[in-house]
């Protein structure tokens, strides 16, 4: 029997695959001086992949399920696919001049970036261990290479190697956990696993061990403390656009997989899931923030800040199984947070790229007096920083609000305690975000060089996208909230 193919539902994946192949071929035939064509082609291809997503939304008729429920296209999948493609597009805009200026391999860069995005698009629909694993490898392996793209730079080599070794270890741990669960439940389908976990098989200790390993593996992926130590080195060494990509899209992919695992697969065992995530969330927020306080390099600071931000996203998982409403509001919170976080973090990295074009430095002190000679960049950066800190009327407050809401909605002492920890952490975080703002607005230019920063049009466009989203969401959050609410996972 041939399996059922819903070509419309798979169209985004097909388009991306087609674009991949074309990009690779075109890269072979265009000569060195016109490699920018490849990047542009990749950008157009990404936008083209958005078209079937929109037509699918228009067509409705969810969920579209294939391969016995292993591959599901529903509102949730489409929303996060859109998120991955749009943030991939923004990263591509940021990279074009960076990669061209650094004399790197432009064509291959676009190809690998697209492959990774394809992996993310696939993982959004995978409701099966095998699908999740394959998609995770598809999105990770190109990223290992991209992290080492500045190949004459030792730090970049270190970044790539650390990322690779940890990634492989993660895969091993995850596969081991998955095999245990498969052994006990007899299925790799998340929905079948859920049924088994809820029943008699769920009481087996082997299931508990399996769940533990799978969650630990993804804790590496989303760089949750204490599995975070690869992240700052990798982020610092990798080319900055790739750092942005890793800290936003790759991390979001990890959370998307976690959502499917926790909310679809493991919901019967919240006695394991909740305490694990409670501890992970508290540690990740607190440790990430406290170490971020001591950073002097802006990329490392953003790396630790993104660890702390991940801690906030872990909060709803810690109340995942409390009651039906908490499940719903938790999922909405994670999705809303991921979308807003993508805009503000990508934006912050965009500014880092722009400023480094002039200062050639990632030190926070090199931001001194930015407000005096590049007020546009400084204003935009200020918006991103205070959005990350969660100060109204910039987008971040709404993301944090949703996290608080999920925790208070679940109720109970542990949930409220977690919310208070999150609240205190948002205050700590303000200190280091404001520190960059302070440098930009209140300190003099360190070397007295006040030539304006030239920002290429592609980078300007990417910054504009991010800042519009951040401000619009802050003032009128209804739009994203609606998206997040519609896109709850079908169980």
């Amino acid at each position, binding site marked *: 029997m041939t399996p059922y193919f819903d070509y419309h539902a798979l169209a985004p994946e097909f388009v991306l695959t087609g674009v991949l192949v074309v990009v690779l071929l075109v890269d072979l035939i265009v000569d060195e001086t016109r490699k920018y064509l490849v990047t542009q082609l990749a950008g157009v291809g990404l936008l083209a992949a958005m078209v079937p997503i929109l037509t699918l939304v228009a067509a409705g008729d969810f969920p579209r399920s294939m391969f016995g429920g292993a591959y599901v296209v529903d509102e949730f999948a489409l929303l996060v696919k859109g998120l991955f493609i749009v943030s991939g597009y923004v990263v591509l805009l940021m990279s074009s001049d960076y990669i061209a200026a650094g004399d790197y391999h432009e064509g291959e860069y676009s190809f690998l970036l697209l492959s990774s995005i394809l992996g993310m698009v696939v993982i959004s629909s995978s409701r099966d261990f095998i699908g999740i694993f394959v998609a995770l490898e598809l999105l990770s392996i190109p990223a290992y290479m991209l992290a080492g793209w500045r190949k004459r730079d030792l730090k970049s080599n270190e970044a790539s190697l650390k990322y690779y070794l940890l990634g492989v270890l993660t895969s091993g741990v995850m596969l081991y956990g998955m095999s245990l669960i498969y052994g006990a439940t007899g299925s790799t389908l998340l929905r079948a696993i859920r049924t088994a976990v809820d029943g008699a098989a769920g009481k087996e200790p082997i299931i508990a061990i399996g769940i533990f390993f799978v969650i630990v593996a993804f804790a590496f992926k989303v760089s949750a403390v204490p599995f975070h130590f690869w992240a700052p080195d990798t982020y610092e060494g990798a080319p900055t656009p790739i750092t942005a990509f890793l800290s936003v899209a790759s991390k979001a992919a990890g959370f998307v997989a976690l959502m499917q695992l926790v909310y679809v697969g493991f919901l019967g065992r919240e006695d394991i899931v909740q305490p694990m995530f409670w501890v992970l969330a508290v540690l990740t927020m607190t440790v990430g923030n406290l170490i971020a306080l001591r950073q002097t390099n802006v990329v490392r600071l953003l790396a630790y800040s993104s660890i702390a931000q991940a801690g906030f996203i872990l909060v709803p998982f810690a109340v995942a199984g409390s009651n039906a409403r908490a499940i719903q509001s938790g999922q909405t919170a994670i999705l809303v947070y991921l979308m807003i976080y993508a805009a503000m973090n990508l934006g912050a990295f965009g500014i880092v790229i722009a400023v480094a074009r002039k200062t050639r430095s990632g030190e926070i002190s090199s931001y001194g007096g930015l407000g005096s000679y590049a007020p546009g960049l400084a204003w935009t950066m200020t918006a991103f920083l205070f959005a990350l800190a969660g100060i109204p009327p910039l987008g971040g407050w709404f993301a944090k609000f949703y996290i608080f809401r999920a925790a208070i909605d679940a109720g109970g002492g542990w949930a409220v305690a977690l*919310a208070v920890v999150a609240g205190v952490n948002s205050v700590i975080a303000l200190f280091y975000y404001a520190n960059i703002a*302070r440098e930009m607005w*209140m300190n003099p230019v360190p070397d007295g060089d006040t030539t304006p920063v030239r920002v290429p049009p592609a980078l300007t466009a990417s910054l504009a996208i991010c800042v519009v989203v951040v401000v619009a969401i802050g003032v009128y959050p209804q739009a994203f909230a609606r998206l997040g609410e519609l896109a709850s996972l079908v169980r």
Partner: protein
Amino acid sequence: MDWFDSWALTLAVFLPLVGGAVIALWPREDETGMKVIALLTTLVTLAVGVGILFQFDYGASDLLQLEVNRSWIDAINSNYHIGVDGISLPMLVLSMFITVLCVIYSWDHFPEPHNPKSFLMLMLILEVGMNGTFVAQDLILFFVFFELVLLPMYFMIGVWGGPNRQYASIKFFLYTLFGSALMILSFLALYFKGGETFDIPTLIAQGGIASHATELWIFGGLFMGFAIKVPMFPFHTWLPDAHTEAPTVGSVILAAILLKLGTYGFIRIAIPILPEAAMSWAPWIGGLAVVGIIYGAFGCLAQRDMKRLIAFSSVAHMGFVMLGISTLTSYGINAAVFGMVAHGLITGMLFFLAGSIQHRFHTRELARLGGLLVQAPRLGWILGFCAMASLGLPGLAGFWGEFPAILAAYSPAEGLSEALFRTYMVIASVGTVFAAGYLLWMYQRTAFGVPKEEFEHIHDVHGGEWLAWAPILALIVVLGVYPALLFDVTSDAVDSVTTAFRAVGH
């Protein structure tokens, strides 16, 4: 005037934002143009405020008027619900009024590093936040406006402030953010316990939300948010730093309006929504308030810097306001609202004076100043006038904030310990003596004596300053002589807050 009814408050809140946007697009070179725009914007906003004063039905000041209720964030049931009653009206108009005077004062007083464009924009954004907080009738809307003032004030202190500005600005920001983080958690708890609504009047109408123990916790979160903003002892330590380092206009806005956001929050949100929890918290709030009165006074006596002294006097004066609130009687809360307005005018004025003195003498050190009455008699007399108003001289506005608050502590709401509150009353009365002490001491050091040789050619009050100050001075006298002007507006609205507490002996 249907059109005005439905748009007045929205205009009052967002007109400054429009002005700010215009300034943002204005050419940087044309400073006068930008000042004119800022002045026009604030004047038009004030005109809307005057319009609201005329449109307001004083016979029904306990009801929300000029109400607008539109959907804003459906996903969380939060609405764009705004309206004014007798408590918010004076605060709203005060905020508009002070902002106009701040624009006038800063006309040729822009502190280093100058940059009037950003400075005026920040001032206008501040006004959006302040006006918005006073009209918001939805917890989330309130929260957004309440937080909106943080960023502009942070930059105002941090960029234009004194030598220690970076420390002061971040301290201010962190302290208040800590309070609001706990406050938003309490808001969420109110939402889920109170029938899934953020609407303040709806929550109030329920007359209690949850079990007493839960309410105590929720009130605790609100208390942290508001008490840090007020600031109450022991959360006051950000205030002297922020005030001392802030530019003059920043200090004025901080003292006149921002501190009131905290006390207003108590009266508008914490007490009416959670009356029973308020009852249990009231003795503690009253206790901290009187500690603040005494502590603030001693703090004043230990200062060498004039501006820091005025900042500590704010801690003491806000203690009187909080004491009035903690009695949970109409009498006390009326006094508190009056105290808020009076403190806004008087302390705002004192900060203006401190700024002008620094502008002339390039120091605020009390030991180096002296002889102001000889060198600049008008300035000296105005300072004396404000010191008298601040110490609560009958006939000036300060008296009507302080004296009734003390009197209210004599008979607090039924259920509160009379003995305890009468003790508070005695301590607070002693506090007024200290207040006279430190204010007269300050006046003596700055105004009396022989002018120092190091300061020559000190100008007296000039045109711009008269323009900015005269309205405040007039209001201090008017409210002092005829306090009913304000009490008549607030009392019905306050009564509706205190219906839950039957006052003893009235």
